[in-house]
């Protein structure tokens, strides 16, 4: 299996250049900080502390998972091309799809480690300090799984810009742009439209679908809609209830495939 050979080498590189360690450390620090900062409202809402912690971490992950993923993936192609090692790699019998798949497997494994350790340790501490029910444990597992999925989407989008960009520097710029659009600007745009529309057809019918079409929002909706207590703690029930329950999971399942297809198409045009 050629993609496994690539994946193994990429995993080594992530471990050697401290990326794996840094990504895990960032996740642990942010998750712990949020858990401790968010420990106040448990009593008033009547939910356990792990639920509150998971709710805060959902918001964290919406920003952090895409960011970490893009930082890992933006130079996957452009970096090799700039260093001059891409031409030699492509002269070997491994296909371009296999190369991308190998990198993706390694980067996704690194994200999985970072997410599991980060959210897991924060979750464990929250449960130890303020208790945890079965439902909140499921919410935590769901958070970890969907965060990896969300990260996977942005890994593939990172490979896409990495293949389109002329240099690693411009790939970094494009990756930052992607993050800004998907995580910040898209929501702002929708919010603006909802305010303009003031409760009309757009808000009732189109808005929830537009929202779930964005992987970052689909991630948020999936996590919130799946757990009543999380929805209660987040105060964000409206949009989620307007959609069928399969909409958000479907969006998050399709996006990595779509992103990988885009990346593969862009990579095919790369001439080292």
């Amino acid at each position: 299996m050629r993609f496994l050979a690539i994946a193994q080498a990429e995993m080594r590189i992530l471990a050697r250049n401290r990326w794996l360690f840094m990504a895990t450390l960032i996740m642990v620090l942010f998750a712990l900080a949020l858990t401790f900062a968010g420990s106040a409202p448990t009593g008033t809402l009547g939910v356990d502390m792990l639920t509150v912690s998971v709710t805060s971490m959902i918001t964290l992950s919406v920003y952090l998972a895409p960011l970490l993923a893009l930082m890992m993936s933006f130079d996957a192609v452009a970096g090799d091309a700039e260093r001059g090692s891409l031409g030699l790699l492509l002269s070997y019998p491994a296909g371009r799809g296999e190369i991308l798949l190998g990198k993706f497997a390694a980067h996704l494994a690194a994200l999985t480690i970072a997410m599991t350790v980060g959210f897991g340790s924060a979750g464990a501490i929250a449960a130890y300090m303020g208790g945890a029910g079965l439902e909140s444990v499921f919410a935590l597992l769901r958070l970890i799984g969907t965060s990896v999925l969300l990260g996977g989407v942005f890994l593939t989008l990172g490979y896409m810009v990495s293949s389109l960009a002329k240099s690693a520097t411009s790939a970094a710029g494009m990756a930052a742009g992607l993050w800004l659009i998907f995580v910040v600007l898209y929501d702002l745009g929708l919010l603006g439209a909802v305010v303009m529309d003031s409760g009309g057809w757009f808000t009732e019918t189109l808005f929830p679908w537009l929202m779930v079409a964005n992987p970052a929002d689909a991630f948020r909706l999936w996590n919130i809609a799946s757990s009543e207590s999380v929805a209660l703690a987040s105060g964000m029930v409206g949009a989620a209830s307007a959609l069928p329950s399969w909409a958000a999971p479907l969006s998050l399942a399709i996006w990595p495939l779509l992103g990988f297809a885009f990346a593969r198409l862009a990579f095919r045009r790369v001439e080292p």
Partner: protein
Amino acid sequence: MDKILEIQGLVKDRGKTRVLHGVDLTVSAGERVALLGHNGAGKSTLIKTVLGLTKLGGGSVKIAGHKPGSGAARADTAFLPEAVSFHPALTGREQLTLFARLAGQKADIPGLLERVGLADALDRRIGTYSKGMRQRLGLAQVLLGKPKLALLDEPTSGLDPISRQDLYAIIDELAAGGCAVLIASHALTEVEARTDRIAIMRKGHLVADDTLAGLSAKAGLRTKMRVRATSDADALVKVTGGRRMNGASVEIEIDAAGKMDMLQKIAAMGGAVADVDITPPRLEDLYRHYAKEGMH
């Protein structure tokens, strides 16, 4: 002979500029061919086309009968890029292991690294290697498996004179094993002695493709002979029609065809001749001739 690389009428355009104009070139099994040309003459584009890294605009390229870029063609081809580079975080052993797995080869990695003189650096990160060491590692990956075609782009850049000797010894070994070797180079004096045939590119045209002797004959460049007389240089001038150089020596310029006749004339003078030096046209002269010739 078994033709491994067959290029026929290869055309390539970059935007509106034509960078390869109907190039024909073949390299047979066991043959070492030097590909010469100024920067921008089209050598790298030619190599990229053979590797399938860039699409051909016209004509045909076959590697052991396969289309460039196909799995079979890539499995048959070894490539050493100009100024080869690897990920600095991996060690030499890890990098070669990766390549071996991609090529589907079970290779003796330590043996290969020993062969190119990197045995000591086996488990050091490539980031700590010198330019020459990276070049050696690049050569080691060429030796993985048994390639039918080796494309070497400036293989001696960054190597010291001893390493260059080693490199050509390895290339000779490859060719002796039946590999077709194409070497793109600027180092004329090196390839002169170490290749079987010379191809010269100029502005996307292949302007020469022959053995060194064949190229000399076609170019009409003359062989220089310097004859030293024991006593009477004037007699020498009379017989050979050469030019007096100094007290005792005469310089003769002669076509390749007339060389043996002249040598016989000189030999017939017996004891009157003290010494003869023959300097055939050098590749540098030939290269200058072909690379500067008028437009096609």
